[in-house]
């Protein structure tokens, strides 16, 4: 379900990013509407993760503009970055849970520090979110006592605790054993159903086809093809996308 709003929640214009002399993003234009689910696919090295990491400022870009909820991303401005990052959640391939904090405290840390919410409220929210990802009983557990799939679900709860408007998923099932992929994707799918705006870099083509509103195919630092999943997977127009898709089988 997509809700039309006057401006895009993520608005990227002519974004260019270089690592030294190597230009990895060569002018990206992308609008993401509120509630839209975007899957980003492409070969490794095509710039898809870098693009995602630009959206919450983990990577600096040299040229172009990036707006989240109408606010431009400004690297030098710590206050603006802090504001922006409260609207953009991110989930990583490697989970990146804080190993020295219990599961519950992983989820509660940012709301407590950043949003200065009161303790009882934060605690209740954390328990509700952990229940939502099916881990209500793990509140007191340590991250290293959980399976990869469980850790990734905690990471999702942790990101949701900040009530983000956009959630970035960077190959979140790539580090999981095959039998654990399903439980994580189920959570992501339910988020999509509830109208969360999602941008996900993924290798799960079946999943991308099922849940996304639009699929972005990246090639050599550019958006090579973009469109609804039926078109991208069913009728790829460029030889690069055709080759990419056939290489997956």
């Amino acid at each position, binding site marked *: 379900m997509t809700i039309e709003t006057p401006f895009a929640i993520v608005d990227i214009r002519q974004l260019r990013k270089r690592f030294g002399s190597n230009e990895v993003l060569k002018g990206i234009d992308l609008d993401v509407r509120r509630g839209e689910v975007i899957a980003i696919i492409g070969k490794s090295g095509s710039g898809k993760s870098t693009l995602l990491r630009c959206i919450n400022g983990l990577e600096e870009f040299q040229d172009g503009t990036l707006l989240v909820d109408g606010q431009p991303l400004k690297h030098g401005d710590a206050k603006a970055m802090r*504001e922006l990052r409260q609207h953009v959640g*991110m989930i990583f391939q490697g989970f990146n849970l804080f190993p020295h904090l219990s599961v519950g405290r992983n989820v509660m840390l940012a709301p407590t520090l*950043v949003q200065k919410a009161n303790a009882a409220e934060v605690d209740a929210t954390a328990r509700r979110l952990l229940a939502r990802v099916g881990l209500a009983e793990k509140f007191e557990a340590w991250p290293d006592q959980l399976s990869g799939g469980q850790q990734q679900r905690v990471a999702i709860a942790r990101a949701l605790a900040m009530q983000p408007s956009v959630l970035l998923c960077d190959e979140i099932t790539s580090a999981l054993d095959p039998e654990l992929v399903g439980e994580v994707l189920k959570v992501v799918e339910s988020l999509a159903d509830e109208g969360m705006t999602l941008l996900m870099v993924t290798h799960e083509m079946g999943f991308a086809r099922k849940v996304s509103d639009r699929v972005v195919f990246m090639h050599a630092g550019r958006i090579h093809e973009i469109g609804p999943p039926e078109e991208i997977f069913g009728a790829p127009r460029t030889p690069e996308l055709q080759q990419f898709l056939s290489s997956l089988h």
Partner: protein
Amino acid sequence: MIEFSVWQILGNLLLAARWTVALSLLAFVGGGLVGLSLLVTRLRGWPGAATAVSAYVHVFQGTPLLIQLFLAYFGLGLFGIDVSPWVAAGGALTLYASAYLAEIWRGCVQAVPRGQWEAADSLALNFGEKLRHVIAPQALRIAVAPTVGFLVQVIKGTALASIIGFVELTKTGTMITNATFRPFTVYACVALMYFALCWPVSAFSRRLERSMRRDH
């Protein structure tokens, strides 16, 4: 020659050991505070900060502690500043310890995976919150062993302060030797004293490391 019993020697050395302990504590606490601010300055990523801190560290790691003590004691004297052995030894050891601790702790911070910084960034934590709640607790666990190891180096390093006339354990040992002409007995006692100071510190570090592993 004056006759000293072994007990008298030990008694005098024990009294002198107080000053070794005091100087070590001063160097360690002062060095820790200065080292920590150097580390934070570096992590802040201010322009030029990393280069400046790295130069500071290289200067103190690249010159002998003895020469640093000489410079602090005699060097400042050249400018008409009268420094007591206390100030010179305390100051030089503080700077020396700060350089090493800043470098040791930087390594510990670097050992925390980059993903931890990124996760903290993504959750909108600011620099101080990130350091205090995410990075420091993890770096601290790694830091215990090398930090305490360095504390042992500092305790032994205070012996050099005897050269600029600071009366601590080693200097007292020399003075007693001059009075008794029993260098072997006296210096053996001095060595024992240093061992009695350093060994419990190492043992404590091993225990601390074990307990931190358990209760995380």
